[in-house]
């Protein structure tokens, strides 16, 4: 027969302060875990979700990111009419040449950040199907108009409809605000690619090309063709794969965060062990009595383990609640890979909450195991004698 749960609950409540302190320690560890994982999840979704599965990004061979790539116009012309590429209603291929350039932008409240200004053609809105203009309209070619990602609005000077943005060497009129489903495009300014080429004075070339594939088209064959055709000779990759590689920052943060959380957990487990050992030794008489009443050693051990687990689970829930205010909090992060600043939001996903609860339970089991075993091994006679 099992020892009633009520016994554990009451035992926890009797040692109120001690329970609160041990629980508090575990709760804070869980909170740290949730904060770090929420940040990693936010960063990851901002970077990785930027791609569409039916898009291919084409960059120069050997380049690691679009920032470090260059494509000549004849290469683009040789590529854009390949049969796997989708056409729009007018029959024009959905091939979007792009030129992202880092420019210094004035922050609201002082200071500057490197922000990507992406030179594109109007076809970009069809290729990047996650990008939608939420206010205003698309820029017109050749007249120094831009649209601004909503991640920049309010964070940088003059990022609102109708104002004039000073970027690079030129002045640009903001005619639209766009949404990109939380992806890294939201931290960019988009303008006419020829205007951007002029502003940077780096000649008529593109950095990369995005291609939208026909449904069911052979992606591997297209990538092969782009690599082998002597007139093209470029490196193609599906957008999700490309952005997964770009998310190295997030992966490094995940490793770092896991190390911090695990080491902290070890500290908290030692603390929990202390408390549980003390609980076992102050309740020697009780244990003797329980055993004398006929509860088996296994039942006593289960009871103490359950007590540790109850404490840890309650603490885990408190930890999650403590970390909750960070959900949705948006901030910026220096992305060393693209040399620019990225806005992202913390995301406390249900998965993270579940992991946090499991994490707390593991701490409880580890902290309670040895003391519970000690309680089980106590001899009834010795335990009762201490009365």
């Amino acid at each position, binding site marked *: 027969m099992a020892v009633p749960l009520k016994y554990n609950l009451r035992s926890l409540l009797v040692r109120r*302060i001690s329970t609160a*302190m041990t629980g508090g320690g575990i709760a804070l560890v869980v909170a740290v875990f949730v904060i770090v994982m929420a940040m990693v999840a936010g960063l990851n979704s901002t970077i990785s979700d930027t791609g569409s599965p039916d898009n291919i990004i084409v960059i120069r061979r050997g380049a690691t990111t679009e920032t470090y790539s260059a494509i000549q116009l004849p290469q683009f012309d040789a590529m854009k009419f390949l049969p796997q590429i989708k056409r729009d209603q007018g029959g024009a291929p959905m091939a979007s040449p792009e030129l992202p350039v880092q420019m210094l932008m004035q922050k609201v409240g002082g200071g500057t950040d490197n922000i990507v200004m992406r030179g594109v053609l109007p076809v970009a809105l069809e290729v990047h199907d996650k990008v939608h203009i939420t206010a205003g309209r698309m820029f017109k070619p050749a007249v120094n108009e831009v649209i601004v990602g909503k991640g920049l609005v309010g964070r940088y000077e003059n990022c609102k409809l109708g104002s004039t943005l000073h970027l690079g060497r030129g002045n640009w009129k903001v005619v639209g605000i766009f949404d990109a489903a939380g992806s890294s495009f939201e931290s960019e300014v988009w303008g006419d690619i020829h205007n951007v080429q002029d502003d940077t*004075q780096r000649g008529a070339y593109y950095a990369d090309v995005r291609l939208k594939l026909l449904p069911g088209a052979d992606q591997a064959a297209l990538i092969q063709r782009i690599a082998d055709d002597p007139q093209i000779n470029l490196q193609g990759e599906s957008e999700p794969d490309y952005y997964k590689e770009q998310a190295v920052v997030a992966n490094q943060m995940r490793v770092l965060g896991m190390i911090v959380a695990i*080491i902290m957990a070890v500290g908290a487990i030692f603390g929990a062990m202390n408390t549980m050992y003390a609980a076992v030794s102050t309740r020697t008489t009780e244990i003797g009595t329980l055993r004398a009443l006929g509860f088996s050693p296994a039942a006593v051990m289960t009871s103490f383990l359950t007590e540790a687990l109850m404490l840890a689970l309650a603490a885990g829930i408190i930890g999650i609640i403590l970390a909750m205010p960070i959900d949705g909090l948006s901030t910026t992060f220096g992305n060393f890979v693209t040399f620019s600043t990225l806005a992202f939001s913390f995301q406390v996903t249900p998965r993270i909450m579940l992991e946090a609860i499991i994490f707390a339970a593991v701490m409880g089991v580890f902290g309670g195991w040895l003391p519970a075993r000690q309680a089980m091994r106590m001899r009834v006679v010795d335990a009762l004698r201490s009365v």
Partner: protein
Amino acid sequence: MKYAMLVLKNLLRSKRRTILTVLSIAVSLFIFSALVSLPAVANQVLSDTASSVRVACHNKAGVTYSMPEAYKQRIAMTNHVVAVVPQSWFGGIYHEVSDQFPNFAIDPAQAETMWPDWSVPPEQWKTFRELRTACLVGPGTMKRFGLHIGQQIQLRGTIYRFNVQLEIAGVMGGKAPPNFLVFRRDYMEEAEGRPGLVDNFWVRVDKSENVPQVIAALDEGFANSSAETKSETEAAFVSTFVNQFRFFFQLAEILGFIVVITIGLVAANTAAMSIRERRGEIAVMRSIGFTSRAILSLLLSESLLIGLIGGIIGCGTAFIVLHLFAVGSSAMGAFGDIQMPPYVLVGTLFIAALIGFLSALVPALSAARRNIVDALRMVV
């Protein structure tokens, strides 16, 4: 001091508890000191550059905009300018994409005058000036890839279409960023086909009070040209890059703070438990003549000792781990190895002592003040 034996005996009485508490403090302070070292490194970089007489002159439009090489002569003619070194970012990779470390091309002629604080020996500077493929490497990068002086290495171009074959002519020490690599710009220019463009100019000013004057002179001189310039002190220039990681550092500081609160809770709990169990014994000691002050200092020094031992173990391990491994060098890109600055070491030990002291304060006070008669009654 005469109670030292007593404190020691008390510590060893419940060995398991003492060990668990010490370990839990050690583990937490290990992570705390490592976390706090992160921003400390960045702050170190900033404070190192605070008194520098170097000025960075770059294109007003942003880092990816270049400037004509010919600006060099005009800058050199400005009053109070001692040396000018053009610099271009190469952004090459050694083997793997994840191997990234900052690499630049600079003009060798005045580099020695510009960066005496890199403590490169004169003969290595000489090789750098004479050998076209020479490069100077920071100690962090040397260690990370197991390089040695005289070794040939190839950097693969990412922005540029060519690779460079370099020979390591010397190691930068002193206040040079530990993971930088610099090679000669004439080599890069030639490989690139001599476009005559540079990313920025480093300008050395004769005296620090003349820095603002030089900055103003440069920016006014190039106003309304095709490449308008923005000149900044080295500190301001570096902080633009460091501030991109500001968020990361703030997070590390917040996490460090939470760690301290967590161990504070654990330590306070243990101290309270161990003192509570000794109530009777304390009453006996007081009734045979120990003053409550003696009892208080006995209990506090015991807890202080636990905190300090934990602190020494934790902080010491962190110091050694950070020292032995190039922890975080890949994650931190520009900052290279994270070393623990001495003040973090001292600060962590102070926090350890404080945790030990404060955690026992409340239970020890109440134990020392307790009415002897009441306490004794519980014993009997």
